[in-house]
């Protein structure tokens, strides 16, 4: 036993020593925030946001040779967790200079940690960006976020199934959700394919449905619950339930089964944000069979056939190195027209910087979509997206509505559903 103990202690000692030496090596890089020469950025998705930052760095370092950006890739939920822990502990230690935050969550960060973010008003011109991006990224008249990608929605349709049932993509263009259901019933009957794939436990369709009407689950102030008397929410819930009841919906249970629903050809349409394009194109055998048309709207006055799902923006933290980080963002995502061309042609990311949303890269025909100029169309729809304030509680409100949606499906009256949701929201959100 003595031998074992000795062996253990030796192993421990060796590991401790080797760690100390490797630690001192890695530490110099890790102190990105105190060492202002190197700027750290947190982002998710290596093929999209991280790739976009890398492109921006490449452009920027052509003129600023000593600039060094360290991009750290984390899952979005992980970034939220890390930011919340770090910021609420009050030590800015270990925080990055630049962080990507989803627009739905931005207001809660800006309001909860008032001095944590750096005011970008002097660096970028907010009028240069798509109108709908401004309310989530600003607070109290100050522009904090540098708007990045758009989550502009579209209705991806399978032209071959439509043809089989005697329809064309034009029949689905600029329609309401009621018309969508009517056509859907017919197509499902004729082709045996479901019209759309839904996940009732994660009804994110409700979000962009409601935004087509320029409404949200919270009021203008971003905190007051706005569900009980909200025609848009009412309409969206009714439509959602009807799609499930009329049996035109394929039910998915998680992200991978949602992707499978269209990769395997089980559904006729996919209504979602433009970032779904790579997943749709992943099934190469379906090339030429897809088209994209504007997303259906709610039959509420003033509703538009344009909406948004997701999308995020860059923020600078109020720590040493902030000026450098702000200049970098301002010179790239806030100014560089050429960068936006590359973002489209190289990674398929559509930005929201209006002066840069035309040119050759935006006019490419996409053979996968039967030669449609998909990017041009998305950009045009993006300009139409109704401006709403996502407020502080998007996901909390969605959780409440998800629960109430189940009650609604099992027979509870819609008025009661909405009133109860309103009450819950008033009790929870403040």
């Amino acid at each position, binding site marked *: 036993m003595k031998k074992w103990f000795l062996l253990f202690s030796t192993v421990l000692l060796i590991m401790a020593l080797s760690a100390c030496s490797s*630690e001192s090596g890695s530490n110099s890089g890790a102190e990105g925030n105190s060492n202002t020469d190197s700027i750290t950025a947190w982002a998710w998705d290596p093929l999209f946001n991280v790739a976009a930052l890398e492109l921006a760095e490449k452009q920027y370092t052509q003129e600023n040779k000593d600039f060094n950006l360290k991009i750290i890739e*984390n899952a979005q939920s*992980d970034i939220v967790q890390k930011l919340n822990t770090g910021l609420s502990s009050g030590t800015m230690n*270990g925080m990055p200079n630049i962080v990507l935050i989803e627009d739905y969550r931005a207001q809660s960060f800006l309001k909860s940690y008032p001095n944590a973010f750096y005011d970008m008003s002097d660096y970028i011109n907010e009028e240069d960006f798509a109108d709908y991006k401004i309310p989530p990224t600003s607070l109290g008249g100050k522009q904090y976020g540098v708007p990045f990608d758009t989550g502009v929605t579209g209705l991806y349709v399978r032209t071959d199934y439509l043809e089989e049932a005697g329809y064309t993509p034009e029949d689905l263009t600029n329609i309401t959700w009621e018309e969508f259901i009517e056509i859907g019933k017919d197509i499902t009957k004729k082709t045996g394919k479901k019209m759309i794939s839904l996940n009732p436990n994660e009804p994110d369709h409700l979000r962009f449905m409601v935004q087509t009407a320029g409404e949200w689950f919270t009021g203008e102030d971003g905190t007051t619950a706005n569900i009980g008397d909200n025609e848009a929410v009412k309409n969206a819930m009714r439509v959602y339930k009807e799609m499930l009841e009329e049996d035109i919906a394929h039910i998915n249970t998680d992200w991978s089964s949602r992707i499978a629903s269209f990769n395997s050809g089980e559904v006729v349409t996919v209504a979602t944000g433009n970032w779904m394009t790579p997943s749709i194109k992943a099934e190469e055998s379906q090339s030429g069979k897809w088209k994209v048309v504007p997303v259906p709207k709610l039959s509420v006055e003033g509703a538009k056939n344009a909406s948004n799902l997701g999308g995020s923006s860059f923020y600078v933290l109020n720590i040493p190195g902030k000026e450098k980080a702000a200049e970098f963002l301002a010179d790239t995502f806030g100014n560089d027209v050429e960068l936006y061309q590359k973002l489209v042609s190289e990674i398929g990311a559509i930005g929201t910087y209006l002066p840069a949303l035309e040119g050759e890269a935006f006019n490419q025909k996409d053979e996968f979509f039967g030669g449609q100029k998909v990017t041009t169309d998305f950009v045009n729809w993006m300009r139409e997206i109704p401006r709403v304030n996502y407020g502080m509680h998007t996901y909390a409100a969605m959780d409440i509505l998800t629960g109430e949606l189940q009650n609604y499906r099992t027979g509870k009256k819609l008025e009661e559903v909405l009133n109860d949701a309103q009450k819950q929201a008033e009790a929870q959100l403040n």
Partner: protein
Amino acid sequence: MNKLKLFSTYFILSIATLVSLFPFLWMLISMTNKSVDVSNGRLLPGTHLIENLKSLFENYNVGSALYNSFFIAIVATILCLIVSSLAGYGFEIYRSKGKDIVFNILLLSLMIPFAALMVPLFRFFGGVSQTIPFLGINTLFAVILPYVTTAFFVFLFRQNTKMFTRELIEAGRIDGLSELGIFIHIYMPSMKNTFAAAGIISFMNNWNNFLWPLVILQSPDVQTIPLLISNLGSGYSPDFGIIYTAIVIGTIPTALVFFFLQKYFVEGMSGSVKG
């Protein structure tokens, strides 16, 4: 009748086995398939294993993540065994007025969820970073230190020490062993089942630990395997084949540790001590 009983027992057991093994089977099959096939629910082994492995190792620093995970799990386990066995032994063997009160307070700490400790701990390590950088935020030691001992392990050792024959200690003292000598030469050999059980639990906890490493580790070079896997799913179009490949790699060590120490584990948890 007996045969029927036997048959139904085995029938139910086979179903239970199938149900509990299916996730592993799914994991192993999926690592050989393309992402599209995985999301389409393909249940047959594919031919994409080499590509998955290649792109995983080329694009992600799996080697360093494995090293970090092993380092954290091994060092934390060894420290945990040393500290909590000494504590459990001391609590049970030595007499002291306030020891039961202290022990009960210690047990109360089991009731505090980690989420509640996270922010204060982060703040604490933020302070540590200023003075002792190699123990602060973004270091492997910051991951290890909060897990060096928990009330659970002290409790486990104390409970098992209750069955340790005290006469052996007396005998050791008469033979002139020091107190530490008694611990090392008499207590440790006769408690090896408990050590093995505690070792497995600690190794697995530390290997699979996610939340604390997530918040305290910032840069990719100190990333652990669970963090790496979490990152793999960070994209809008994740590659499921690669994710499953990484999950298999991350599962192998805990599976091996468990298989090798399984015998001791069962005995250690049931608290038996061979005389």
